[in-house]
């Protein structure tokens, strides 16, 4: 991929780039389709139900049917809504969610953009989604949507900070912002994975990541029991689907990021298991993180907005800072 980038621009590399982008897009869409099904199945298992079973074998076509239904829905724009922003908001929320995927390395060979500031790029772009959600809430001209949007802005900005600072520990350990090099630094036995030296940072990262995803127990922006549906209460049809898509693509992104940063990416837990292809290991770890996120949703109640904010600023941020300090001190003395 990188040699192609260095070559002069021509039809050959144009088609290759386009093709790989389309393949990635389809893979992600496929993931989203089955992640939704998987989530519903996990919820079903936790709640002693079957989850979707009617559409297709084992409910495999359920999400397809849902998306088709959304496509056929009437596209409603409230009369008093801000039309331009209302139409723009889902796109603003959704585009960065795909853009962040570019830097994630899946295996040694399957990786797309080999950015030197990959991690920074991820964090910076994912922040843009907040604007989309806030705009969606604002443009709907609905009180519930506005409250949902504002909550979401407050929450995502607050949690972005501990998220970034918790990652600094990883950056210090591997000495690079490049995700490929971060993974390479975790080669060998499983205790080389960043999760063990960075266990505090991992805890902060995980909590902040769940909050970034707006998922239970931090699903305040769309707190159903209070705000009905939160920021997307006025959205219907495909605009709504875009918001949902963005949400699930972020699940994908965060799960992949957790795998890369803390769980050793494509490396096997023991070097003698290296004969199993890296992509399998990556998928295993990745699926476990996704399952963990869904499992949380089945188990926990929702936290309150003021508790959420105080948790971010009073606990997570200091802990993340202490983690950075400790990592720096340890590195200074032992290396």
């Amino acid at each position: 991929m990188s040699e192609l980038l260095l070559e002069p621009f021509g039809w050959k590399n144009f088609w290759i780039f386009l093709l790989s982008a389309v393949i990635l897009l389809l893979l992600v869409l496929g993931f989203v389709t089955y992640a939704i099904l998987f989530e519903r199945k996990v919820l079903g298992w936790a709640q002693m139900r079957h989850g979707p079973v009617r559409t297709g074998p084992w409910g495999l076509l359920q999400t397809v049917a849902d998306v088709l239904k959304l496509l056929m829905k009437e596209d409603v724009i409230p009369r008093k809504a801000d039309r331009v922003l209302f139409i723009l908001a889902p796109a603003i929320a959704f585009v960065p969610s795909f853009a962040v995927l570019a830097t994630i390395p899946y295996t040694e060979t399957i990786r797309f953009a080999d950015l030197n500031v990959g991690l920074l790029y991820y964090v910076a772009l994912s922040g843009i989604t907040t604007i989309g959600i806030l705009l969606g809430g604002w443009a709907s001209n609905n009180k519930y949507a506005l409250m949902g949007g504002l909550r979401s802005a407050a929450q995502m900005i607050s949690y972005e900070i501990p998220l970034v600072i918790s990652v600094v520990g990883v950056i210090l350990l591997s000495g690079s912002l490049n995700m490929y090099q971060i993974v390479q630094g975790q080669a060998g036995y499983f205790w080389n994975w960043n999760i063990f030296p960075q266990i505090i940072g991992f805890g902060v990262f995980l909590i902040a990541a769940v909050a970034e995803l707006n998922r239970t127990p931090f699903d305040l922006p769309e707190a159903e029991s209070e705000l009905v549906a939160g920021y997307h209460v006025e959205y219907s049809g495909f605009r709504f689907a875009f918001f949902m898509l963005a949400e699930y693509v972020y699940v994908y992104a965060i799960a992949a990021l957790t795998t890369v940063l803390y769980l050793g990416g494509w490396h096997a837990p023991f070097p003698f298991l290296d004969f199993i292809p890296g992509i399998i290991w990556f998928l295993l770890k990745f699926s476990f993180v996704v399952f963990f996120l869904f499992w949380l949703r089945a188990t926990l109640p929702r936290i309150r907005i003021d508790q959420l904010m105080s948790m971010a600023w009073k606990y997570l941020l200091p802990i993340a800072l202490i983690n950075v300090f400790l990592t720096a001190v340890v590195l200074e003395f032992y290396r």
Partner: protein
Amino acid sequence: MAIRTEELLLNVGPQHPSTHGVFRVIVKIDGEQIVEAIPVTGYLHRGTEKLAENLNYTQIIPYTDRMDYLSAMMNNYVLCHAVETMLGIEVPERAEYLRVIVMELQRIASHQVWWGTYLLDIGATTPFIYAFRDREIIIDLFNELCGARLTYNYMRVGGVKWDAPPGWIDKVREFIPYMRKQLKMYDDLVTGNEIFLNRVRGIGKYDAETAIAYGLSGANLRCTGVKWDLRKDQPYSIYDRFDFDVAVATEGDCWARYQVRMEEMRQSLRILEQAVEQFPSGGETMGKVPRVIRPPEGETFVRIESPRGELGCYIVSKGKAEPYRLKFRRPSFVNLQILPKLLVGESVTNLITILGAIDIVLGEVDC
């Protein structure tokens, strides 16, 4: 320079996922803080009391099913109890036991719905399913007994309509240890959860004096430390034969109300255990009742302990087959009155927590 802020008028309900039906509350909010709350009720008003004036007493019973639809047995009972008191009818032993068994099962079922929906309000989806799974067993028992799952129309003036089918009492007996186990699981899943505790502790707090001044009853009163349970303090039916404790807590907040209701389920199981043990092996299920029920001229007021509080029934009779005036004291309606006072200064999130903890059933609020 301070930022100019504006009060926002937010309409919550009647179509809202967490108002437990068609309750509506108009709140003025400043940021997320509630400045004023105005409850609006009446969306489910069906004029039960007025309709009753043209019906004879047996015909009224199905209407009471639809008041507090989560505890239809209690509503059945309070009407029958009032008429029996006026007529001085002796209810057979077996019927009394059946009544107590169904009423205590109903209390557990009602609290299960409350527990599930309350946790749903707080954002946990799984407890709801667990509660409904266990409630299903009770509903099935009722179904077997009287052929209905929600609106039972089971009790009659002077007794109960159907005797227990063979093996039914054994099923109730089996249910008790099962439910004990489930209650422990409920506790494991929710009661100790830090997020849950933070959501309910210290929220919607009031003291015993306020509670009495507002006429609160049931768990809403007992959460302030007032030990008042009509089953114990003014025993009706055969409640004086059972050994059980009145569940109380002292904090007076949503957490206390939660604890009281959980404990009430346990105490109901104790009553059930004894009732099943003492259940008479034979006997009638209907007492001696005149062909046409014409209570003597006069008035009467009886009250019982429903899952939501004191359920009262006031009958004025002119010696006819229909009541001259029938009035229900509906605990949901009375308990709801404290809501505006509790909401001031709270956030919108707490609105749902507080409303859920009062435990209203809209069928009963609007009657």
